[in-house]
């Protein structure tokens, strides 16, 4: 780790990706994510890497597909409307079992929406997004430090499991500056015997493909992929718990919503209300076990989101609808205040 510097979240992603050995970036500018591309355009030429502003998001994700197939660490970044455009390519990358990092610095939607922060791509990120049976590993940073740390982790997980990983941030996380210790550059050690690097006349061809016209064969690849997903659910789920030990009201929130909620939980404790916070760091896999455990003592849950209520469904599923789950939200680029979350906690406490 290096000395702490003040950096925007978007810049921290870019610098951490370079430290993780990523030398290929393809993107297209869009607020509030553009600093990732701007930073890469300055740095990549100096270190022998590729920065390429593609003619569109669709083109950029397919360049990612190609470089991932050649076995290199590669990424793209965008914001909500641009991520929608990338979905076909993401499905292909998942279908071809290739590692890649896709960063979504979310803004309000649907449609062109607005440019202010949002979390309303939760469904798209965690439930598929593109067509077919697949998942992305989805990581949700809640600080500039995590923007950096989870970027490195995302590349490692992508290589480990040969699958695309999404870093799901939002406009606040991208635009805010906080002190960050940047990760030290690391050597990429993952062997990629499957990569298409030229046979040099000595080995059989490697084939990168997502087309299986034989349904039995396609089914087999899907079943195998879901065995891998099961392993990931068991081993890679990550979350933070804050004051949940004796919590009667448990707030569930990620990213910027978790930052706001932590203030509210502290304020509730000062008022004598036993509140706690569970912050999913992986959104897929979703931290079902700690939620179910918290439901043993908790009387109610609150899902705090910058959306009309998307993660709330996973909260209800995780606790098997054993407790009431309330929604505390803003949408369209608005952010709940700690006071709004505090009154939701007080109301939940009063009703249960």
């Amino acid at each position: 780790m290096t000395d702490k510097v003040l950096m925007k979240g978007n810049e921290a992603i870019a610098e951490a990706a370079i430290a993780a050995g990523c030398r290929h970036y393809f993107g297209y500018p869009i607020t509030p994510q553009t600093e990732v591309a701007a930073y890469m355009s300055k740095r990549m030429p100096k270190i022998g890497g590729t920065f390429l502003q593609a003619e569109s998001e669709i083109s950029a994700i397919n360049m990612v597909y190609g470089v991932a197939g050649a076995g290199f660490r590669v990424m793209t970044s965008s914001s909500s409307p641009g991520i929608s455009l990338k979905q076909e390519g993401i499905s292909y990358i998942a279908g071809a079992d290739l590692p890649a990092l896709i960063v979504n610095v979310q803004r309000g939607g649907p449609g062109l929406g607005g440019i202010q922060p949002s979390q309303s791509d939760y469904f798209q990120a965690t439930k598929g997004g593109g067509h077919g049976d697949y998942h992305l590993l989805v990581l949700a940073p809640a600080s500039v430090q995590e923007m950096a740390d989870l970027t490195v982790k995302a590349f490692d997980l992508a290589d480990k499991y040969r699958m695309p990983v999404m870093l799901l941030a939002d406009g606040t996380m991208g635009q805010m500056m906080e002190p960050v210790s940047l990760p030290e550059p690391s050597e990429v050690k993952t062997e990629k015997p499957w990569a298409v690097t030229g046979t040099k006349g000595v080995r059989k061809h490697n084939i990168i493909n997502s087309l299986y016209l034989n349904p039995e064969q396609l089914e087999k690849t899907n079943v195998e992929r879901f065995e891998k997903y099961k392993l990931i659910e068991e081993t890679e789920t990550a979350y933070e718990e804050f004051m949940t030990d004796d919590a009667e009201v448990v707030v569930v929130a990620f990213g910027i919503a978790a930052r706001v909620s932590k203030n509210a939980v502290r304020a509730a404790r000062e008022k004598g209300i036993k509140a706690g916070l569970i912050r999913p760091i992986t959104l897929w896999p979703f931290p079902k076990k700690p939620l179910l455990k918290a439901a043993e003592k908790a009387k109610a849950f609150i899902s705090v989101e910058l959306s009309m209520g998307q993660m709330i469904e996973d909260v209800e599923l995780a606790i098997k609808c054993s407790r009431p789950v309330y929604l505390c939200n803003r949408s369209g680029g608005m952010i709940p205040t700690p006071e709004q979350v505090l009154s939701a906690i007080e109301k939940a406490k009063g009703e249960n």
Partner: protein
Amino acid sequence: MTEQILITGFGGQGVLFAGKFLAYNGLLSGKQVSWLPSYGPEMRGGTANCSVIISDEAVGSPIVSAPDILVCMNLPSLDKFENAAVKGAKIFIDSTLIERKAKREDVTAFYIPATRLATDAGTPALANMIITGKILKETGFGTDCIEQALKKVVSAKHPELYEKNLGAIKIGYNL
């Protein structure tokens, strides 16, 4: 201790830059800090503001909705944010550009003719740093780290700006 600072004005007045300086000043003084800009399509002329939090503890929400310290560099900002300030807040007002006084009686208002002072000093774009100097004086924030923090935020490509910014901070500090 947690200080929630909201700096507001027009785009182009250096609202974000002043915030970045205060954040670095806090960081170098060993505090936890966050800096969050309002970001939008406007570059110059539109409203701009930034939230800076300087704290002894980890920063929770980076959004300042009830500032302990409010800087207003134009009238629309004072109109919009005066009531949001906490009781006992310090409000710093550029009195060259804002003719009215603060309406609140439960806050301490400082009236600084920053834009005029900056123009008189030959650095008309540095009213932001004159106000910043006054903030440092009135709060005692990281006064040991001013020069170090300024070096972090002034571009290495324009070293001449360092002296000008330092001069502006001194004008505000010595008011």
